[in-house]
């Protein structure tokens, strides 16, 4: 009976958390700041969340593109198809690796920082003091961070894909000697804007929204102690990663599953 009771408690906790997260999101999305107040806060968060994530995204994109170039060349040259390397790299990055790897990197770098920052503000009563000053922390603190994550994610994923393709070109064309015209020509003829690029962008938008929601909610809802903040930061990375990978499968099945 004890096990059934604890299972029930866990179930109730999960439902309560999802309910709180939903109400929290509604509060953030409906509380609109004046543009003169909200825009500078958004720009500041875009810098902190987006610009400061550029280095990790660019370096990772470069190396992943180079690895794809090497692996692709090794496999395709067995069939005499190394000219298709550009097409392979572009499709892999635009459809899958760009959105997914960027989201995972973003969750690790920016998501954990967002959760820890908001959690610490809660633990040091900064959010409470804001409330008591008549300033809504959902508008002032949470909304700019949520929107910054949402906006930065697609841009970072696009940069990741571009740098990855360039890295693949460095290895394939400059190092291994694939004909440059075939590399770019095959890529241009096989990558469809609506089928591939747009679907990739839709994935990044969904991932950006879900990841930002998880990160800011975990910070806002954490137990305001050092252990609570540590646990919330871990949850952000774990839940965001699982949500991204799970949603990627669902979205891929919907977008490309027309068998």
């Amino acid at each position, binding site marked *: 009976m004890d096990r059934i009771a604890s299972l029930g408690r866990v179930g109730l906790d999960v439902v309560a958390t999802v309910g709180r997260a939903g109400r929290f999101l509604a509060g953030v999305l409906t509380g609109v700041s004046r543009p003169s*107040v909200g825009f500078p806060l958004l720009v500041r968060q875009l810098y902190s969340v987006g610009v400061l994530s550029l280095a990790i995204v660019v370096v990772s994109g470069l190396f992943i593109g180079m690895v794809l170039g090497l692996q692709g060349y090794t496999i395709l040259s067995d069939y005499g198809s190394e000219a298709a390397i550009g097409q392979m790299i572009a499709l892999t990055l635009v459809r899958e690796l760009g959105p997914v790897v960027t989201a995972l990197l973003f969750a690790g770098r920016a998501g954990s920082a967002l959760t820890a920052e908001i959690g610490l503000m809660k633990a040091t*009563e900064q959010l409470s*003091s804001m*409330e*008591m*000053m*008549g*300033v809504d922390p959902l508008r*002032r603190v949470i909304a700019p961070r949520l929107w910054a994550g949402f906006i930065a994610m697609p841009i970072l994923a696009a940069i990741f894909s571009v740098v990855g393709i360039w890295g693949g070109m460095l290895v394939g064309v400059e190092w291994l000697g694939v004909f440059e015209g075939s590399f770019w020509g095959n890529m241009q003829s096989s990558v469809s804007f609506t089928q591939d690029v747009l679907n990739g962008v839709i994935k990044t938008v969904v991932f950006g929204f879900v990841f930002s929601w998880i990160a800011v909610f975990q910070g806002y809802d954490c137990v305001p102690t050092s252990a609570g903040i540590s646990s919330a930061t871990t949850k952000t990375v774990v839940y965001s990663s699982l949500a991204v990978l799970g949603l990627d499968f669902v979205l891929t099945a919907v977008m490309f599953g027309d068998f």
Partner: protein
Amino acid sequence: MDSGAYITLRDVVFSRSGRRIFDGVSLDIPRGKITAIMGPSGTGKTTLLRLIGGQLRPDSGSIVVAGESVPQLKRKALYTLREKMGMLFQSGALFTDLSVFENVAFPLRVHTALPEDMIRDIVLMKLEAVGLRGARRLMPAELSGGMTRRVALARSIALDPELIMYDEPFAGQDPIAMGVLVKLIRDLNLSMGLTSVLVSHDVPESLSICHYACIVADGQIIGEGTPEELRQHPSERVQQFLNGHPDGPVPFHYPADDAGVDWGLGGGSA
């Protein structure tokens, strides 16, 4: 409602995590006076401030502040009411990414459209009032505990509130910092005509500046009145708290089994 009361609590019941914190608390907090709410740690003194500020909602009962029923206010109206309130948190709760000057300027920038030179003058006046005009360029991490609370005090009076709530302002302060805070609370009340609510378990300091005091314990108000009335209060619990007796109605020992059982000297098993 008592016409002289700025805050009125009637039959307030509040529970958290299945534990009853307040069980029918009624209290009038007079306008323009310093009211001390005292009591042992963990009796819900800070919770009472959060109920007054609308950060928590009672299970039942009414809380009226400045003529408005706080639990029934919509979000926007509640935030508007809070513009009339200042609160000094135990930790100071300064924004760690802003300088002392910017911390005090924060409520002015958010709630007013004053020009920058006027904001500067107001901030410097508030910092002068707490003796920290010269510390305006420091960051919160560079301040001592006492200075942090003084900056937080300057920030909480930046908008000239009608009500200011102090949450354990003397906790962890050295005697000089404590003396400074006592003087500031008294002077601010006199000069600005504020209604002040002071939550503390530092009995001598609180009774030395308050006009009215109450003691909270076991979810009830067990004694209230002027400092002199409290000192003469017949309740043993009130006297135990005020005089700091280690044993009395609040026992020294946490309830436990018979000592002989724990040490294996008598019958029964542990």
